[in-house]
């Protein structure tokens, strides 16, 4: 039971990270109807920016952990958002009216560009960082000596995710931008006719998606203590799996899907085999799509002829 509880905690933390990335996928899919393949690599860039910022802050002698975290988070979000904006501007916007495969291939190309760019710019080796947030609590200790641990990093990850999710939900549900976004999602031409700046809204969608991916990158760095140029690919596919699982286009669905994938992965590694955890996640994707093609919370797509 204790072991299960521990895995549950680990799974939720991992799931929060996936969920944050998945939101970017689901938003972009909702608004422009394409899989932003480069999103996983945007997450990776976020991790790298966080690492570099962290290194600079340490070297200029800053030691107050909350301040460091805040600066790292803000810088990473800002720079990564710029990456998201540029990617949309360079690779997707010229193809918006093109046939369906074109933006997807362009996105795959962009994904290669980003991951190989960071390989060239920062080297191929894994970059470890010392733990930034240390300590934690022991929730329960069984007689056998197995202790359920809740580390401070895990608390930070989950709390940050919840806070950001709240801000984000408010943004989509209550603000002018959120309304524009939902309008574009339903009908871009009509939205444009009614005075919504479609280009700007789409750009902003990418910017927000990238910023959330950057947060996920920072959390990943805090939690695992390392980044490498290739981490975007697998994380990206899994986050996309999460988005599909939750029903693509649905924001709560993305978070739910993220948690589900995180839990599946953690529990699978805990009880079955570590090697096949990714296989389990992908198999779940296939199984879900067979029985629930629209995902857990997705609206059934009405096929128009």
């Amino acid at each position, binding site marked *: 039971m204790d072991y299960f509880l521990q895995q549950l905690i680990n799974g939720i933390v991992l799931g929060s990270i996936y969920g944050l990335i998945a939101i970017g996928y689901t938003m972009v899919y909702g608004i422009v109807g394409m899989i932003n393949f480069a999103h996983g690599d945007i997450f990776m860039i976020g991790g790298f920016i966080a690492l570099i910022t962290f290194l600079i802050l340490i070297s200029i002698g800053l030691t107050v952990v909350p301040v460091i975290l805040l600066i790292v988070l803000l810088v990473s979000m800002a720079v990564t958002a710029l990456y998201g904006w*540029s990617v949309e501007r360079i690779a997707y916007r010229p193809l918006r009216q093109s046939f369906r495969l074109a933006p997807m291939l362009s996105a795959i190309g962009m994904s290669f560009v980003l991951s190989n760019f960071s390989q060239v710019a920062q080297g191929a080796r894994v970059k470890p960082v010392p733990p930034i947030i240390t300590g934690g609590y022991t929730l329960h200790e069984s007689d056998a000596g197995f202790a359920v641990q809740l580390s401070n990093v895990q608390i930070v990850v989950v709390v940050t995710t919840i806070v950001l999710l709240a801000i984000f939900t408010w943004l989509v549900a209550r603000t002018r931008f959120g309304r524009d976004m939902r309008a574009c999602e339903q009908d871009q031409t009509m939205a444009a006719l009614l005075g919504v700046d479609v280009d700007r809204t789409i750009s902003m969608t990418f910017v927000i998606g990238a910023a959330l991916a950057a947060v996920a990158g920072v959390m990943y760095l805090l939690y695992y203590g390392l980044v490498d140029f290739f981490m975007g690919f697998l994380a990206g596919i899994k986050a996309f799996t999460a988005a599909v699982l939750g029903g693509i286009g649905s924001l709560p669905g993305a978070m739910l899907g993220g948690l589900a994938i995180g839990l599946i992965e953690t529990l699978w590694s805990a009880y079955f085999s570590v090697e096949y955890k990714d296989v389990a996640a992908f198999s779940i994707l296939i199984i879900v799509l067979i029985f629930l093609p629209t995902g857990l919370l997705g609206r059934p797509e009405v096929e128009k002829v």
Partner: protein
Amino acid sequence: MATLATDRTSTQPASTFAFILKKAALSALVALGLFLLMIGIRTEAGPSGQLIYWTRFGELAAIVAAVFVGSIVVELLRQWSGRIGIAATPAPWVGSALAKIGKLLAPALLIFALLVPVIFYNQRYLLDLGILVLTYVMLGWGLNIVVGLAGLLDLGYVAFYAVGAYSYALLAQSGLPLPYLTGSYPFVAVDFLQLGPWAFWVLLPVSGLLAALWGVLLGFPVLRLRGDYLAIVTLAFGEIIRLVILNWQSLTGGPNGISGIPRPTVFGIPLTPGPDGLAAMLGVPFSPTHRLVFLFYLILALALLTNWVAIRLRRLPIGRAWEAMREDEVACRALGINITTTKLSAFALGAMFGGFAGAFFATRQGFISPESFTFQESALVLAIVVLGGMGSQLGVALAALTMIGGFELFRGLDQYRMLVFGAVMVLLMIWRPRGLVGHRAPSVFLHHRTTIAADMVKEGRG
């Protein structure tokens, strides 16, 4: 770089020099923001595992300056030549001209391909490159059945390539398992038939069939999916296959791969220096180039077989059904075409040729490992198909030649190779999304085209 993508809708004012400068300055500013941390500062794990960093502001300045200048150049070019074309399709005259050239080009290319081993007999490197190009041509033609003809976006094609390669490698080493009935318990036993020099020729069809079986296995769950969902499931499938190969150490050797895979023989006659070898039999001195030449013709034959089958199938009802399904699945179903068999047959056939190519790859390399079957390969083959103009056989061949040839040019700059590949993919999609050569129209269609033609319907929905 950011200026490459100008706003399509905005009508730019008569551009002055100041406008260009402003735009370039903005691009440079964006570039500065992008690269300040990523290029300006280089991190590396130090000797004691601790991270160290150093600054590279020189490179940073150079890149930002390059973006500034490049942006001015692009903007000037744009004004000089009008809007840099974002042509959805090649102009009609390009199509007809290409059709004419194509009629001549295809036989010319074929003759050239046949002569390559004669002309470049002494250049092993070029022969090797030719074999590589032809492998990708074959993969491209195989995937073309799935993506180009049937319109099913498959991002996991490399899985079938892997299945073919591993089927061949494993069966060639263990022998072909032949189950037979025994009179008593356990009723069925397996005998391993050692194939010796015939391994490749017996196992080539076996590998293809196994890959086709996997194609059907993949096809079943994705019958109801379309467009992007299909893409992601095929991608997941490809990853599953690779991960299983990577982790099933006892069978596949895991990351170490399988080595010592039997080399191909000329219908039973080995290409070895020994007295049984082909060279000794023909009475010519042995040369390792013989094997290369043989492999070259082998893959050429396999690729041509793929091409021939695809072209013939296009004229059969099943081929017509594929094209109809690509154009409009709903209409297809309404007309009574069995979507299940149509889709499954496309997956199976595409996969089978992938399997053939895989078996060839295994026998050529003599060594395979999961590293050869990553998503990058799938993306590369898909890029070849799309850049060739989906459905166009000649286009795919030319695209494979260009891509793989281009890849080889960058061999020295190994690090930058994928970077350039990605960038080229993006630029080509912007410049020529319908492919370099052209888009193949359906083999048959009503000559009177209505306003809502399949082409237009397809623009919006995959």
